[in-house]
């Protein structure tokens, strides 16, 4: 750690992990509700538990991104963070917003929450991923603006590296595209159209730029490969993300009342959307192969390679599987969609944040470049437990989804939705077991932070 202000990343990372645990617990609840339909009903209906699951997902990843940026940007800009005080203030504002929103979801009915927060004056609630009360969205926007200002000023006054600029582009995109979350016209189709400008362009465009920048930073640090080479890869990845991801939005516009031409544009650009993920994977493996030093943090290296591979499988492969219009006609809005979302989110975003935490946390905690061998062994166990179980979750619900498509949409005499769901029970049970293994992996991950032992020292890395 070169600058003391990088330390503001620490509370962000700790809170991110805590909320991650919450997300998984609620995931297990809704997984069980798929098979034991009345589990916890009416105290915690499915829609509420699912909303908590996805809300926690987004906010813990945002906390992870912000922490990562606060760690990376000063080091890359070669100066202290513009305002560490603002960073800490925004942390608490964000966390309080997250907790109050959660309490709102859990303690009162959604309609009451909408009423209490004045949704009628500016209705933005009740849409997938955008369930937060308008006031929560406004707080999130203010935090995003303050955060981008802090990061932007640091970069503006310091060294403008490619990693910093790509990261900043992604973060500005994140804040700007969030504005579309506030637009909810009476014409539902128009609302759906612009909702994707936040959701899709976050997950399949600007968040990917953030992910690429984070990965590039960690790879540069742990492999010691020359910055010029890292930069070149990052340029190509950025170009590939923008050229495929933006019009890839079209694959959400096939069947929601938008014109048929989207079936062509969406399919063509979705077909090339795996390219940036493939380049990311090749990038990660090439950098590790041509490394010029042995960094003691083996766990971070594992996460860095893992995030590239699982992102490619989850976003690239499982995404492609259903992105072409003639296939999507059958798969749209089924368990196959859910499978893709799970593996893509975990691979691209959860794992890249964990990569960053794995790399930065030992230093933030005043240890040497890496945790002790014992701690790293546990962390690597958690990597495999979580990655393998999430892969199983994705495969199980892909299979369930395939059968769902067959019985509900493909055969000559289709069955009703619930009749099909009853046939899929065995897959949902197996998915729940895989989820429990994931939780075990996550517990092992948390435990790895409390394992002491001899720290691993500095290496010859850091020439960049």
């Amino acid at each position, binding site marked *: 750690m070169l600058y003391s202000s990088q330390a503001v990343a620490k509370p962000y990372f700790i809170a991110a992990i805590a909320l991650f645990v919450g997300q998984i617990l609620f995931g297990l609840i*809704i997984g069980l*509700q*798929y098979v034991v*339909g*009345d589990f916890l*009903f*009416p105290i915690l*209906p*499915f*829609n*509420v538990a*699912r909303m908590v699951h996805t809300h926690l997902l987004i906010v813990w990843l945002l906390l992870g991104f912000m922490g990562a940026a606060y760690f990376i940007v000063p080091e890359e800009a070669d100066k202290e963070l513009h305002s560490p005080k603002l960073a800490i203030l925004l942390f608490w504002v964000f966390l309080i917003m997250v907790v109050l929103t959660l309490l709102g979801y859990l303690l009162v009915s*959604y*309609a009451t929450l909408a009423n209490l927060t004045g949704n*009628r004056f500016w*209705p933005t*609630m*009740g*849409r*997938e991923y955008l369930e937060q009360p308008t006031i929560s969205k406004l707080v999130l926007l203010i935090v995003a603006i303050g955060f981008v200002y802090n990061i932007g000023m640091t970069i503006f006054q310091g060294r403008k590296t490619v990693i910093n600029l790509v990261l900043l582009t992604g973060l500005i995109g994140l804040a700007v595209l969030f504005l579309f979350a506030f637009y*909810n016209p*009476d*014409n*539902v*189709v*128009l609302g*759906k*159209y612009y909702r994707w400008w936040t959701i899709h362009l976050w997950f399949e465009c600007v968040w990917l730029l953030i992910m690429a920048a984070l990965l590039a930073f960690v790879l540069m640090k742990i492999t010691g490969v020359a910055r*010029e080479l890292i*930069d*070149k890869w990052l*340029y*190509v990845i*950025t*170009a590939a993300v*923008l*050229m495929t991801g*933006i*019009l890839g939005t079209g694959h*959400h516009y*096939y*069947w*929601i*009342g*938008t*014109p048929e*031409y*989207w079936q062509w*544009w969406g399919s063509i650009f979705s077909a090339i959307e795996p390219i940036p993920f493939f380049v990311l994977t090749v990038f990660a493996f090439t950098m590790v192969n041509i490394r010029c030093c042995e960094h003691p943090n083996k766990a971070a290296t594992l996460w860095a390679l893992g995030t590239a591979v699982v992102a490619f499988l989850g976003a690239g492969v499982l995404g492609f599987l259903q992105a072409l219009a003639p296939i999507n006609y*059958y798969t*749209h*809005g089924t*368990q196959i969609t859910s499978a893709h979302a799970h593996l893509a989110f975990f691979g691209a975003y959860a794992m890249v944040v964990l990569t960053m935490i794995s790399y930065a946390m030992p230093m933030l905690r005043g240890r040497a470049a890496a945790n002790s061998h014992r701690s790293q062994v546990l962390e690597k166990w958690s990597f495999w437990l979580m990655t393998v179980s999430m892969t199983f979750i994705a495969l199980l619900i892909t299979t369930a989804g395939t059968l769902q498509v067959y019985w*509900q*949409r493909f055969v000559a005499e*289709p*069955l009703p*939705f*619930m009749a099909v*769901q009853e046939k899929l029970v065995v897959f949902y049970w197996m998915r729940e077991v895989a989820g429990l293994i994931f939780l075990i992996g996550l517990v092992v991950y948390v435990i790895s932070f409390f394992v002491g032992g001899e720290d691993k020292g500095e290496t010859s890395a850091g020439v960049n």
Partner: protein
Amino acid sequence: MNNIFTNAMARNTIYGSVLVILLFFVLTFGTVRTLPERVHHENITPQVVLGKAVWEQNHCVGCHTLLGEGSYYAPELGNVYQRIKHQTNETHAGPFIKAWIEIMPTDAPMRRQMPNFNLSKTELNALLAFLKWFSEINAANWPPNIEG
């Protein structure tokens, strides 16, 4: 490789995205222009708008899908009006849907449960008007069949 593909060339590939963004705006313009006809904008009455608010403020999308978007826990509702009409008839579809919502939850053991949202008569009628309007949107022949 370094001499053939320089960093400057790598950086310049990013400019290609400008074309993509322009194309995105053109296609968006086309979409926004044709939507009123595809969704029968003239049928979005104040009652439909109220129904949309009921839909959103009770978080229906937390379990159901609307043209495939939402959660996959409960049936598609974009075409629910057509589906119930198919099972009953034109006059009974509306009352059937309203009664269905009112008798929830079933409390059948182990079955997925839908909460009772305590909707007023006005809200129920508005929600029905919303679902009826929505079922007439031109969604490129989706869903593949009446089951959603």
